[in-house]
């Protein structure tokens, strides 16, 4: 068992070398970045403190490779003092395991990146539809409040006006709003594509989205590729767990700093069945494996960035359609339908309830000093702007003078 130490370390180093060569070949990861993210201060602290300990002679003699249980013959008495473990365990097990798992994680992400399919380009029509939707959403959101109400209304009409305002002869009326025009265009494109496909298929059978290369639909092959990455991770986890429990069996690895109940003994102290008085805090290698596996996730997020997010920002234009994980399978992006729905929504917005900051700018500026409009009974009053009719002209003009 003790001779396996160097072997494992060599395996780990070979694994690290292959992993590094793989990622360098991909040239998406730089080692200097990884090194720079490891903060030197805790390492310096640890180094000095461990030096201090050796100076004070706390180390156990090398002749005792395994921790000795103090000589209590009463099985109910637990070891309450801190055991000092051999430093060879640290050198050949704890740290190499950490390094191996870091490399395994890097390998896993590189393999996942290789296995992921290249994103297909989305057709022009849908790209235009999506960009139109983004612009409309900006009008709807609070940013629209920075326009004056007249201009906002004008924009809304430009987007969503219905057809048939002027001439009714042609099917595509140029007075219609942009969204509706785009919807018509998308429908025409789709009909064209369908016609082309019908010609290619050479018959009148229905279009099968699975076998058709032109129509982008939900391919089962892309779903498989997504699962392949997950499978790789799971397989790797299981293989490593088996390997570790085979190689590193039968000795105490680390002590977890928090107390555990006796029930956990069986899980965490595999291979140490005879040490019934040993504190549950002293764990064997499998639990160290689990600790490292969960703990290194955050570390990888720091060191490598979030690959999904980088890809999302880089490949936006080329993201294939079927990749939206939230939508049910088989749902395609129907440009015409979505655009028309958006146009209808836009029409339905109640303009009275929105606040237009330009219109209220004077109120906001003057605050309490904003002169209130006089309530005048009778006709001749402009409801919107509070101006009064010719009867009270002098007061209105004096108000204007005060404001200026």
């Amino acid at each position, binding site marked *: 068992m003790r001779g396996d130490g160097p072997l494992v370390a060599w395996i780990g180093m070979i694994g690290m070398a292959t992993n590094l060569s793989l990622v360098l070949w991909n040239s998406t990861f730089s080692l200097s970045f990884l090194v720079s993210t490891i903060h030197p201060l805790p390492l310096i602290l640890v180094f000095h403190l*461990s030096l201090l300990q050796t100076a004070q002679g706390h180390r156990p003699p090398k002749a005792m490779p395994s921790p000795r249980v103090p000589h209590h013959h009463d099985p109910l008495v637990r070891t309450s003092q801190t055991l000092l473990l051999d430093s060879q365990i640290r050198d050949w097990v704890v740290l190499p395991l950490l390094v191996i798992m870091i490399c395994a994680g890097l390998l896993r992400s590189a393999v996942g990146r290789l296995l992921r399919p290249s994103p297909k380009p989305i057709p022009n029509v849908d790209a235009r539809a999506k960009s139109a939707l983004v612009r409309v959403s900006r009008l709807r959101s609070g940013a629209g*409040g920075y326009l004056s109400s007249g201009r906002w209304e004008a924009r809304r009409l430009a987007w969503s006006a219905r057809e048939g305002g002027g001439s009714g002869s042609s099917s595509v009326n140029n007075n219609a709003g942009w969204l509706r025009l785009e919807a018509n265009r998308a429908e025409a494109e789709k009909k064209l594509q369908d016609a082309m496909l019908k010609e290619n298929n050479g018959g009148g059978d229905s279009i099968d989205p699975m076998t058709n290369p032109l129509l982008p639909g939900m391919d089962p092959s892309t779903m498989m590729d997504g699962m392949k990455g997950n499978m790789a991770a799971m397989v790797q986890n299981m293989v490593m767990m088996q390997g570790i429990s085979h190689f590193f069996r039968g000795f105490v690895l680390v002590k*977890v700093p928090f107390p555990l109940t006796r029930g956990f003994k069986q899980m965490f102290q595999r291979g140490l069945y005879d040490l019934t008085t040993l504190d549950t805090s002293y764990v064997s290698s499998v639990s160290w494996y689990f600790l490292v596996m969960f703990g290194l996730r*955050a*570390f990888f997020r720091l060191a490598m960035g979030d690959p999904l997010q980088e890809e999302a920002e880089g490949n936006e234009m080329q993201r294939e359609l079927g990749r939206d994980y939230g939508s049910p399978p088989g749902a395609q992006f129907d440009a015409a339908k979505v655009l028309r729905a958006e146009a209808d929504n836009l029409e339905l917005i109640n303009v009275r309830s929105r606040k237009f900051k330009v219109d209220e700018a004077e109120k906001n500026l003057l605050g309490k000093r904003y002169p209130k409009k006089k309530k005048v009974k009778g006709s001749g009053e402009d409801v919107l702007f509070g101006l009064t009719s010719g009867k009270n002209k002098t007061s209105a003009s004096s108000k204007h003078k005060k404001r200026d």
Partner: protein
Amino acid sequence: MIDPMADIDHSSPAGPDNMDGADGNLEVFDASAYRSNLAKMDKIRSFMGIASGCVAGVCGLTGLAGLVCFIVLHMAVNLSLLAFKMNLDLHSYSRESMFAFLTADLQKCAMSFMLFWTLFYGLVYLF
């Protein structure tokens, strides 16, 4: 670099900017800025988890004292994020409530805290 279409998806054609709930008080919301803010806060918090693990391990805290140390440091980092970077104005930077902001990512940071706590405790006191 900032792609204006970075937040469109099929299910909500209006994108995350659509906040029609509160009439008359709509938010002006930039999704890419929000996401980059979140990414940075995530980075800071995970780094803090690792560093607090190292601190707890080196100081030899065990059991409840270590957990308390972790929570205290987590809160301290979030509060200093709030005070120095957001100028005590949470709502213009994030959509969550104060409590959700202070306890965000607690579990993720706790896992890495546990790992580095065990590692450094073992390195310093056991080996």
